[in-house]
């Protein structure tokens, strides 16, 4: 699920999301499946922008997180949104419900 782009510029104190590579692929731990070993270990977190006083997406910034930690990284989202939802229509689910209701109605009628 792609996240919405959001605001263009963040000011100190604004809620932002940052990212940082923790381990490059060649630095990763011993026994890993191939698909995992080829990619970096990446971290994302959120907090209030502390440094610099203004920043744009892509800038290196510092934040203060909700639990009081200072963290550094690349600014990826300003006032990030939540985009997860209840999903697209899955007709099979409605079919299951209808069939079950029908069945139990029949059971009730036949005692």
């Amino acid at each position, binding site marked *: 699920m792609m996240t919405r782009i959001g605001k263009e510029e963040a000011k100190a104190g604004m809620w932002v999301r940052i990212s940082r590579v923790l381990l490059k692929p060649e630095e990763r731990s011993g026994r890993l499946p191939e698909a995992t070993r080829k990619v970096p270990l990446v971290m994302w977190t959120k907090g209030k922008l502390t440094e610099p006083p203004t920043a744009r997406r892509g800038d290196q910034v510092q934040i203060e997180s909700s639990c*009081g930690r200072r963290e550094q990284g690349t600014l990826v989202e300003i006032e990030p949104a939540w985009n997860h939802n209840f999903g697209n229509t899955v007709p099979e689910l409605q079919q*299951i419900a209808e069939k079950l209701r029908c069945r139990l109605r029949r059971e009730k009628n036949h005692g």
Partner: protein
Amino acid sequence: MDSRRREEIIRSSVGIDYSRFESGSWAFDYEVMMESAGYSLKEVQRIQAEAGVGKTPLLELRNISRLARSCAEPGKGARIFLKDEAAGPTGSFKDRRASISAFHAQKLGFPGIAAATSGNYGAAVAGQAARLGLPCLIVQECFDSSGTGQPEIIEKARKCEDLGAEVLQLSVGPELFTVYLSLLEETGFFNASLYTPFGIAGVETLGTELALQCRELAGRPPDVVVATNAGGGNLTGTARGLLKSGCHRTIMVGASVDLRGLHMASDRDFNRKSFTTGHTGFGIPFAVFPDRSDVPRSAARPLRYLDRYLTVRQGEVFYMTEALAALEGLERGPAGNTSLAAAFSLAREMPEEQIIIVQESEYTGAGKHHRAQLSFARERGIEVRFGDPAEEVPGRSIVLPREPEQIRAVDLDLMELKKSYLRHALEERKGETPTEEDISYFAEETKSGRDFIISALKSLGAPEKSTDTKREKEQQR
């Protein structure tokens, strides 16, 4: 990070000296650990009452029971009850564990509390932290390398953040544990591990409530209790609570979603599964090697309590999730319905006057909802279709049963799991000889007997205690 530093961080972040329970060999004193490092049932009840945790309803699923009877032979189709843990403060039974961990963290004067979890436990810890005014850090494995997050985990992140916690999210990889340890070292926060004695003690009240409520509602103790099994804590705590309430004849069944074939550390497989917990990817490894967790000795030891261990398919669980909403008016998260699917299958084998309890439910919401999960799977190219659930291939298809009769939980071979446990144990202390104490310990660990252990150890080629010294002594006389 070297192992000594790891051990030091783990020890100081949990506040338990595990060494005093050790024998120097395989055996350790589990019950002493649970008693001395845990909290008594009364203490747990008091802490949970103050935290607004526990005493969730036990609901009889009359329509689902009727459906089960209609799929069973005459006289079969046990009454199905649901322990509605979704009614807890943050919507899952994890509130029980979190309430004790948080109490403990505050009592010991830690500056904050942390947990490494992509599951409901994060929100439970965050909720308790909010109530106690403790800074909170949750570390999740959430995204694959393309930045695609599992919708269920995103919802959990949202909940933790909305309860005031920092949620640090990682891409796929087992290095999460090392990252987590570094963060514990940096912050000095309490490690609200899922595997501490007090965490498990927090779940015991679920078992005692089941016993009490079942007797009240149905006039008899539960015949069967089905608990979703991943790390083993859910099942362990519930079983212990049931036993403490005198339910020695209650059959304890574990249930996991069958995801065998998928690799849990694979970046590619990460978003090809619809269940992030309650599945065989955790359930089997943690059952056969409980001490793989983030503490030296896990309090979650499911093989001690399992009478049966069932697997169900993703499609069967999604089906039952829809059935629960359509027939009982209860919208609940699919992961929490793993044991419902297993219980539905099992109920059809049981006499109709018996009671089978589904030990938990969880809340549902955006991302967690079964429609959201099925949509996500379809978008990822997973085939979602009707058919025989036995045809399901994890990572490639989700097969929804056409009829409820097709829901058939499959037994895992417990004997093989117990042997696997012994195999792991022997690997851990290669070349060492099990003592008599170790043999008794193994029997307890696997809910078996001395004879089984001795013959299993023999077949695994374990070093045996030399009888020569005995013969020498006799010759000398």
